[in-house]
C-alpha cells in the first residue's frame, strides 16, 4: 500500500458566522482575528462548536480546511 497523496491546500475554506471565507494555509486564529481587525478581548469565538475560553491559546490554534467559526460579541438588548 502506498500512502495516499495528501494534497495540502494552499488556502483553507472556512465558514465564519455562516458565510464562506478563505484564508491562507497556516493561518492561526489570532492571525485571522487580526485580519478582521477584531480585538480578541471583545469577542468570543466558537470553533467547530467548541467555545474557546482561553484567549492566550489563540496564537497556537491553527485553522483547518472546513472549520466552522462563530464570532460573537455583546450588543444592545433587553
Amino acid at each position, binding site marked *: 500500500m502506498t500512502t495516499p497523496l495528501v494534497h495540502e491546500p494552499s488556502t483553507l475554506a472556512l465558514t*465564519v*458566522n*455562516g*458565510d464562506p*471565507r478563505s484564508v491562507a494555509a497556516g493561518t492561526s486564529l489570532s492571525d485571522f482575528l487580526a485580519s*478582521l*481587525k*477584531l480585538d480578541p*478581548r*471583545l*469577542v*468570543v469565538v*466558537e470553533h467547530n462548536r467548541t*467555545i*474557546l*475560553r482561553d484567549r492566550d491559546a489563540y496564537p497556537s490554534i491553527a485553522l483547518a480546511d472546513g472549520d466552522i467559526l*462563530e*464570532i*460573537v*460579541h*455583546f*450588543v*444592545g*438588548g*433587553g
Partner: protein
Amino acid sequence: MTASVALSPELDTRFEIGGREFRSRLMVGTGKYASNAQMIAAIEASGAEVVTVAVRRVDLDRTKDEGILYHLDPQRFMLLANTAGCFTADDTIRYARLARAAGFNEWVKLEVIGDQQTLLPDAAATIEATRVLAAEGFKVMAYTNDDLISALRLEDAGAVCVMPLASPIGSGLGMLNEFAIRTIKHRLSVPVIVDAGVGTASDAAIVMEQGVDGVLMNTGIAAAQDPVRMATAMRLAVDAGRLAYLAGRMPRREIAVPSSPTTGMLDR
C-alpha cells in the same frame, strides 16, 4: 452613577440576589436606543447598576459595527447577558455559555421564547435550561410567565431569581395580573424581579407596590420620546413604589370617610 440619588438605607431593606448585594432595584436594557450616547445618558439617569446586553454575531464586513463594550464600562455596570432570541433549551444553553466566555461573570438572564408573535416564554424549556446551567455554576435569572407553578419549578431548578413578566416584551401594557405577581412573590424564597411590559412610570410604581424585589425594563425607557427624562421618572417611580409597599397602604374602602373633623361647624 451621577444622577443616582439612592434611597437612604434605613428606608429600604437589603437587596441581594445570589449572594451579591445590589443598591438599585431598577435594572435596564440597552436595546433600541437612537444612539449610544443617548443609551449611556439614560442608563446613568436610571441609576441602574445591572445592565442587560445580548449576544450576537459580529458583523465581519462592517468594522463600524462596534460591540457595546466600546461604550459600556464593565467596571461601572454589571453586564447581564441575556439569551434573547433563543427558542430552544439547547440554543439558550449555547448562548449562555458564549456569554460567560465573554469573560465578565457567571450571571445570565435566561429567556427561552415559546412563540414568535407574543414572545411569551416557554416555561418547560426555561426550566430545563435553568437546571443545566445552574449545575454548571451559572447564576440564572429566569424570565418567565406570571405563573406560580413555573416560578416554583424554576426556583427548584436552581434559579437565583425568577423574573415574571408584567405583560409581553415591548408591549408597554403595564401590570396585567397583580394577583399572580403577588402570589409568586409570597411563595418564592428567591428574589422576584418583574421583567417586561412596563410602559411608563406609574407601571413601575405599581410593579414595586406588589412587594417584588425589583424591576427590569428596556423599551419603556428606550422608546420614550425623551429616554433620559423617562429613565429619571422610572428611577423615582421604582423608589416610590418600593417605599409605598414598605409603608403599607391604607385599606381600600368603597365609602367616603371625611379627613377633617365633622364637629365644630358654624351655625349647627
